[in-house]
Structures are given as structure tokens and as C-alpha cells.
């Protein structure tokens, strides 16, 4: 997978304070790093949120990106998730043109991907699929032949793989200055 080389996933634990996301986003734009996708949500501990960032490591070395992130006072911990040793999921919602004759085909296709039809209109369907980013890509490509009128994907979220292989969750020790 070419993507696993270019893109790295950083799981960034931040203080749950106003403006933290803006600091992270601002850092990326100021230093010229590219964000491929980004997802934010509170953690089980209300003091912290987790930002899952997929970064393009061709724009800058990952080491520089994590070091600069650590300099943000509100960043508490950064874990680097190698796509090969983590489970990643992303959610896609897509509204697809589906006149009567095509509906069956689309529903069949969505079934193959284990997605769901979550809304039905006069000549459109809204499809939901939660899967790995490349499966989403495949499904999206196939749906496109029917005509996609609207599409929304979340950033990916990820956690390290369990047991068997030792997870290559490299927890980088927090160094701030």
C-alpha cells in the first residue's frame, strides 16, 4: 500500500480546553505540514480529547511534526500509529442517484460492502459505510458510476492492533519546551 508509506496516523491526546484544535490546525498551516484527515472527540476522561490526525509525511519528516506538536502546551501525549499495526476506520455517507430501475443494484452493492441504506428519497438513496479507508475508496468508486450527488467522509480514527503481533504503538515521551 503506497498510502501507508506516505501517510502516518498520529493519535494526539490534548487537554480539553477551548481553542486547542485551532492551535493544532494553526501549527500545521504555519509550518507547512499537510493534514490528510483529522478527527476529534472527547475521551473517557473529560479532561482530555483525542485528535486523530493523518499526516502527509512527504511534506515534512514525521519527527519534526511530532516535535513541533509537542511544543504546544496543551498537547499531552502523542502516539504514532503505523497503519500496518493498527486498526483504522472511517465513516462515509453518500447520497446516490437511484431511479427505480437502479435501486436494486445499488442496494446489492451496498450489501456486499456491508453498508446500510439510511435514507430513501424519491430518486435518491443515502448510503452509510464504516470501514477501512481503502474499502471506502472502493465503494465510493463503484457508487460513482451511478452518480453521487453528495458525499461526506469523516477523518479516520485508529487504535493499535491487539496481541499476536506486538503493537508498534510508539509512544513518544512528552517533551515540551
Amino acid at each position: 500500500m503506497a498510502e501507508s508509506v506516505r501517510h502516518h496516523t498520529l493519535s494526539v491526546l490534548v487537554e480539553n480546553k477551548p481553542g486547542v484544535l485551532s492551535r493544532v490546525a494553526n501549527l500545521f498551516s504555519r509550518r507547512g505540514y499537510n493534514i490528510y484527515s483529522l478527527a476529534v472527540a472527547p475521551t473517557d476522561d473529560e479532561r482530555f480529547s483525542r485528535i486523530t490526525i493523518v499526516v502527509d509525511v512527504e511534506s515534512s519528516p514525521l519527527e519534526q511534526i511530532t516535535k513541533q506538536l509537542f511544543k504546544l502546551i496543551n498537547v499531552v501525549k502523542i502516539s504514532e500509529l503505523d497503519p500496518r499495526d493498527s486498526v483504522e476506520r472511517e465513516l462515509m455517507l453518500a447520497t446516490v442517484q437511484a431511479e427505480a430501475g437502479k435501486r436494486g443494484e445499488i442496494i446489492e452493492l451496498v450489501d456486499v460492502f456491508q453498508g446500510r441504506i439510511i435514507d430513501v428519497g424519491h430518486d435518491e438513496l443515502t448510503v452509510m459505510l464504516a470501514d477501512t479507508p481503502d474499502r471506502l475508496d472502493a465503494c465510493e468508486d463503484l457508487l460513482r458510476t451511478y452518480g453521487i450527488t453528495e458525499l461526506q467522509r469523516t477523518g479516520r480514527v485508529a487504535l493499535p492492533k491487539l496481541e499476536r503481533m506486538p503493537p508498534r504503538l510508539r509512544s513518544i515521551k512528552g517533551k515540551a519546551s
Partner: protein
Amino acid sequence: MQMSGGQALIKSLELEGVEVMFGLPGGAILPVYDPIIDSPIRHILVRHEQGAGHMAEGYAHATGRPGVAMVTSGPAATNVVTPLCDAYMDSIPMVCITGQVPLPSIGTDAFQECDTTGITQSVTKHNFLITDAKDIPRVVREAFHIATTGRPGPVLVDVPKDIVDPKNPRSAMDWYWPTDEEIRDGLPGYRPTTKGHPRKIREAAEFILQSRRPVIYAGGGILKARAAEALRELAELTGIHVVTTLMARGAFPDEHPLCLGMPGMHGNYTAVTSMQEADLLIALGSRFDDRVTGKVGGFAPEAKIIHVDIDPAELGKVRRPDVPIVGDCRLVIEEMVRALRDLGGSEAQPDRNEWKSRISGWQEKYPLTYEQSADGDDLKPQFVLENLRDNTPDDTIVVSGVGQHQMWTSQYWRFNHPYTWVNSGGLGTMGFAVPAAIGAKVGRPDKMVWAVDGDGCFQMTAQELVTATAERIPIKVAILNNAYLGMVRQWQEMFYDERYSEVYLSPDLPDYKMWAESMGCIGMRVESPEEVLPAIEKANEIDDRPVVIDFRTDSREKVYPMVPAGLSNDDIVVDPTQGEGGH
């Protein structure tokens, strides 16, 4: 004890040991200015908020203590953006308090509202918007803690009016003073590393003991870490020469036989070339700035790198180090000296006589030089600086603006004490000198403070001399008045076929002498070499008000040596009288 947020803010500053702050009041910060009347903190009323910021920087440069600026919201906050960025680039500890519109008005485009924390996010080490009066003491403590520890930097605290205004119930709070532990626990993501890794330090010592052509590349971090003594011990133990970057002038005495002076774009030939030819660079608190490295690909091609910095992000940012060490420069150098002694100290080093004789050869062949002016011609700026240098106390604090005069001052002054050189390095802020000199003098009233300024720079912030006169801060300003934006002129002459575009300023518009006098200063004008010394001597005797001397200097004079932008340091251009410089 019940008090208002405004009182709590001033009390917090007092408890942080603030003795002086620089500022200018306005609508949103009014309630915080009221308790200042009853506070022992000295407040210096500036004439423009940018001045307050640079004064705080100058104060911090000269004393090592955090500078404090306080201004109101909106335009005042945007006026301190430049000093904040300047302090951020040069790692100056500084705390800036800004007023903000009341909380319910935030986001409504209220009068004098601006998104101060948003605007200053990328020019501060950290910033805060306080939303509850009870947070004031904690945030002030956190701000000072962040500004002064790790890699120092500016921290901004934005304070909405309603939480400091005693007329508003929202400002009522019970006074408390947070403990060190509470501050630590409140900043779970902030744990600067100060102690270097012992194995890496030993490895560095081994590299040093194997090197035949080592150079110590000392940066501003030496001064921030109060590591000048430790640096001297390292240099003397190993006999390794030291270059001091623009931000590190004075960190190692210029008169020391191992001192090579300033490297970089306008560094002297020996400092530049010794780094190029080195087999080991010991980078201590320096950051491989483009003005030092020239074209990075051609910088010190054969050198292994030991890089010590308290900011982990500096290691490998520009040049990959062979031995990276994260830590406080003073602690790391002390450990390095210990490790070197353990490994046999100076006895265990290879013979470096050949290297030393190459260095002294360069020093003899390419000293700094300039041609004296012919009779009746304008003064040479270097001549003025030599006179100033030789007729002021050894520990005079010298403050400069940005441009040719800054480079000449760094080149021609003899800095023998740390914290005697104050300038804007990273951001290159024209107009820095006058306010920064005022801040330095406030912090070190026992020392003579001379600002060396250009005529272009002087016009940007000269109004702060009114502040200096009113507050009886007797700084001295030497304007090297060449009637041009000199550095830009130099580039246009050298790289734009002498097509001078928008660089001429006129020598006598404004009339600097009259302008100085109108601001309550003593003003002088010096046009011929024999007037130079008497003017300096007269200025040195004046201790009750600022002095400004307008030195009319030669506009054709250029700063040499010079590594043209984008070229390798091997392509250094020396003074034309010294022939070809490259090697």
C-alpha cells in the same frame, strides 16, 4: 480575602516578582490600571504599544528576568504583535497582558475588539483568554512559568473587562495563590527536559576527543541558560575555538584568544571559514539559522554535528546531528566537561596545531577592515563605532536596530561580558533599538546603555524618547545617519545593478538634533572625524536625560564580509581591498 479580578491581577504580578512593567492604558484594561496606583510595581507609560513590547524585551535581555507589558484591547493588542513575534523568534521571556472586551461582547465585533489570542497564537509560546476571575492568579503563574522555563518565550494573557471590573459582580473572587504543584498539575503537557542524556553526553565527549578540527558554535541559548561560565570552561579545557552568533555576542569574551567572533552572512572570514572547514561543530544553543549556514547543502560539509538545545524540535530541523542532546545548555555543558575529564581531558586530545595555525593564518590574512574617509567626506560608520567602543565602559550595554549599523556594531564592538548586547536577531525588527535600550536601562540602571541605530530604524520608534525623558531613563543613542535604508541600498547596489528603488531618506529631513531636543533629549550633530570623540565624551557625562547624536556617515559604505543570499559560505565576499575571499 475577597477582591476584584483587577486587584488580583496586579497582586499576582507583584507576587511573581515584577518590579516594572511597560504599558499604555485604554478602555478594556482600565480596571486593571486603577490598582496600579496602589502597587509598588513601577509602570512606565509608553507612547506606542510596540514600544512597550520592545522595552519588555530589552529589560528581559539585560536582566534575564521576564519583561512585562500591559496594553488594552484591539489596536493596542495588534500593536504588540511585532514585539511578541520578535520575542518568540529570539526566545525572550516576556509576559504580555492585554485587555479584552467584556465576555458577553466577545464575538460581536464590539468597539476595540479583536481576536487577540487567535492573532497571537503563532507568535507566542502560549496564550490564554481568561474567562473567570477566579482563574487569574493561576493563569498569571502559569504564564510566568511557561515564559521563563524550557525554551523561553512570550506568553500573552487576554483579560476581558468584566472579570476585572469591580463594578461587575463577575469580577469578585476569593484570593488564593497556587502552589508549584498545582501549576505543574495544571499543565500536564508541559515538561521541559533540562538534563541531557548521560550516554549522549559521553558520546559527545568522545567525538570531541577524536576531532582534529573542532569549532564550538555558540548561540543565544548559552545566554538564556546562563551558561557563559560553563562555555568558557569547556573551551579552555579543550582549547577549542568558539564562534558566537549574533544572538550570542558576549557569551564568550571577544578578547579571549579562542574567540573567533561572529559567523554568518556578515560574519568575519575566520569565523565563517573555520566552520566550513571543521570536522566537528559543537552547536550549543544555536539553531542553524539561514543567516549562519548560508546555503544549507554547502554548510560545513565535512563536519560531524553535536547539537545541544533545550527545544527538541531544533535538533534535526535544519541539519541532522550526529549527537543530539536535549537539555539546558548550562547543565549539559557542565556534564560534558565532567565527561571529558573522565576520559582524560585535554591530554586525551589529538594534536590540533595544524588546525590552530590555519585559523591564525585566516585571522592574519582577513581581519575586519575598512578604508578611512578622505578629508571632508562623510564619516565611516566603523570609525564612529571604534571611537564609541574605545570610549565607553567595558560593560556598556549596546542595543541596536536592524540593518547595516547592526552588523557593524556586532563586528566592531568588543563584547567581553554576557548580557551587554541587545538586538533583534530572528525577526529583524527595525525600530527595536530605542525602546529596547530604554527597557535595558530600566533593568540595569547601574550600566551605561548606548543604542546604535540607523536613521531608517530611528524614525520607526523614536517617539519612545519622550517616554525616556519623562521617566528619566538616560539612554544614549548614536544614529549612524547615512540617509538611506542602508542594507537595502547595499543589496540594490550589489544585486540589482545599482538601481536604487525607494531607499533614499535624506540626511536632514527630519532634523534629528531638533527632533531629539523637542523630545527633551540633548541633541548633537557630528560631521567630521575630530568632532566624534568630544561628542561621545559629552554624551557620556550626561546622566539626567537621553542623548541623541546624529553621526553623518558615508552612504556608500557596505558591510563586508558578505555571503550573498542563497550562496554557500564558501562564496564569502571580503572587503574589496583584501582581494578574492572565496576558497
